[in-house]
């Protein structure tokens, strides 16, 4: 990894902060969509450096956080089935279902493994033909191409003992839902750079125009975030509402054509329930009928358990930017990373976890 330091240069940060300050004439509320951005903002202390006029709201862009509790229960049930090797990204293992998490399934004898890529899970399936290997395909548009590629490869190589438990979600419908709410909280968005690397920026233009809201596609390093915030502030102060691309070193307007083709071949757009928020129309991806043979939910016929979130958990409000984590009555008391009530306290991209980890006390 090269050029990391260039995007973490304190002197440049000071220049951006000064530039932001000189443009401000009134308070603005900006929302960063992606949990990775939230994590970087709190880790590097960027929100603490910003002028008080700017409020950063943390958005719903944490795939772990918005995966419904029923699906976690479904994952646990499949993982506990005999003969199954259940593979997941590490974040998902500690997310509480209605009665247990995947770590608990592992401790009870389930074969639950952390992998770094769905293709690693596919390789496991090839090495262990007697086992059913299931990959928990969670994520936004960013992880969809690799998951699509995994089933594509499974068919090409004739690997029958591999399937996906799919819970993909899409960013633009969530942005629309936030903007359509009567008590709209957000003046401008930092869109998620990695999602746009795959999808491009075009689908945000109608949203920016329809809702008169600036959307700046932004990266994840401290200087990316400061530049993105600066671009939002300039647009807001000038009364513009456009889609701009701060993350041009990675994002093309049309996105990544090959990745998009792979997604469209394997997945179709479906309504999807978001944990803490509810169902949003056309906000998720599921396997197309032609690929149904690779659908773990059908293969294992494990159905929703009717699981519910803990009644004290307000992660839905946190995910919509309506409640700061530290203002939740359960924060740090009833709800901690060791005993989380909701997913936002578990995932390293969850706003509650980020605040608990970096901001539990008010640093002087």
């Amino acid at each position, binding site marked *: *990894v090269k050029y990391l330091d260039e995007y973490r240069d304190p002197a440049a940060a000071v220049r951006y902060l000064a530039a932001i300050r000189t443009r401000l004439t009134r308070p603005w509320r900006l929302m960063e969509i992606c949990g990775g951005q939230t994590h970087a903002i709190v880790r590097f202390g960027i929100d603490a*450096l910003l002028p008080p006029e700017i409020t950063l709201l943390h958005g719903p862009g944490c795939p*772990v956080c918005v995966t419904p509790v029923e699906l976690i229960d479904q994952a646990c049930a499949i993982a506990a089935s005999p003969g199954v090797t259940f593979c997941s990204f590490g974040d998902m293992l500690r997310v509480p279902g209605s009665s247990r998490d995947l770590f608990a399934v592992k401790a009870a004898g389930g074969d639950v493994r952390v*992998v770094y890529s769905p293709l690693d899970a596919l390789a496991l399936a090839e090495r262990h033909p007697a086992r059913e290997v299931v990959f928990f395909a969670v994520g936004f548009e960013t992880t969809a191409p690799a998951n699509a590629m995994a089933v594509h490869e499974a068919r090409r190589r004739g690997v029958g003992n591999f399937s996906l438990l799919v819970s993909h979600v899409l960013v633009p419908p969530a942005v629309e839902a936030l903007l359509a709410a009567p008590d709209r909280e957000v003046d401008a968005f930092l869109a998620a750079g990695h999602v746009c690397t795959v999808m491009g920026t075009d689908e945000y233009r109608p949203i920016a125009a329809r809702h008169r809201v600036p959307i700046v596609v932004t990266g994840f390093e401290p200087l990316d975030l400061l530049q993105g915030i600066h671009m939002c502030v300039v647009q807001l102060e000038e009364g513009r509402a456009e889609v701009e691309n701060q993350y041009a070193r990675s994002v093309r307007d049309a996105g990544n054509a090959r990745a998009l083709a792979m997604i469209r071949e394997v997945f179709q757009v479906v309504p999807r329930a978001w944990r803490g928020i509810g169902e949003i129309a056309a906000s998720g991806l599921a396997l197309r009928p032609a690929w149904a043979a690779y659908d773990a939910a059908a293969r294992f016929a494990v159905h929703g358990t009717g699981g519910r979130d803990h009644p004290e958990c307000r992660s839905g409000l946190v995910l919509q930017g309506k409640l700061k984590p530290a203002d939740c009555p359960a924060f740090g008391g009833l709800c901690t990373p060791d005993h989380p009530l909701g997913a936002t306290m578990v995932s390293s991209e969850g706003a509650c976890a980020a605040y608990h980890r970096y901001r539990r006390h008010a640093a002087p």
Partner: protein
Amino acid sequence: MTRGPIALDCPVPRREPALVQLAHGGGGRLMRELIVRELLPAFAAGRPPMPHDSAVLSLPPGRLAFTTDGYVVHPRIFPGGDIGRLAVCGTVNDLAMAGAEPRHLSVGLVIEEGLAMDELRCVIRSLRAAADECGVTVVTGDTKVVDRGKGDGLFVHTAGVGVVAAGVDVHPRRVLAGDAVLLSGDVGRHGIAVLSVRDGLAFETPVASDCASVAPLVAALLAAGIDVHCLRDPTRGGLASALNEIALDVGVAVEIDEVAVPVDPGVAAACELLGLDPLYVACEGRLVAFLPAAEADRALAVLRTHPLGAAAARIGTVAAAPAGQVTLRTRFGARRLLDLLSGEQLPRIC
């Protein structure tokens, strides 16, 4: 059958089983062969001793430091070390953290039926080499063989004793507000080295474990007359967890400067890719020293004279409040909590 490099200086002819069998732990002839041929000569400095149920040690008067640790690392062989070297250095380092001069170790082996005898020999040789390097002797040991499937190949358990010289008092209760916090080198190498060979992860830049004894660094600090208040080796949970333990146990605050903590570029890159924070990744050849701020510069100079301490740095300061918390000053000047993690770091989704 061709003989691998491991067998070249192995004195044992090849007629005995290539895999460890249950009978090797059964108390009979095979077990005696294993102990007499493989273990005793490797441990006892070339002087085949008369086997006995206990080691009887002569030690100088004074206080003893005594510690124990189990080693279950997987994979057992990784860049920069293996489970044998780790089992020696880890326990030697725990003794050194008490200001002790490490002297003797015990070694307990729990072997899973089916382990390749060559791998066992390799680990034993490495263990012996590390003991020689650290200046300690293995004086007692135990071998158990468990059924296939009831162990993960090989677990090693070591205990160690060391001698604390008169006048040396290295203990967490001596940590004071105002103390300087020194770190002997860059962080995260061991954790990344082990991760890099686990489940097929491979990096462009191979990162080797820092697995080594830090006892010479401790000896040098003490010999220079530096009033070391407390020492910690940042193993599991890394630097952040070691600092949090001190903050919580002693009831002080620790303030760390992010830019002062050395991180190798290869480790930093691997951490970025895997979504890990190097401050929480294990070291096996580093120490954190708490000592009077007035002695910090001299202590740094002492550490830097040793190759293991060449990158030593002052990374922070102990404060009275907020008690029990570690704060990090980020490179942008903002301050944030450096918390104890709930468990292992989990790689992020994206």
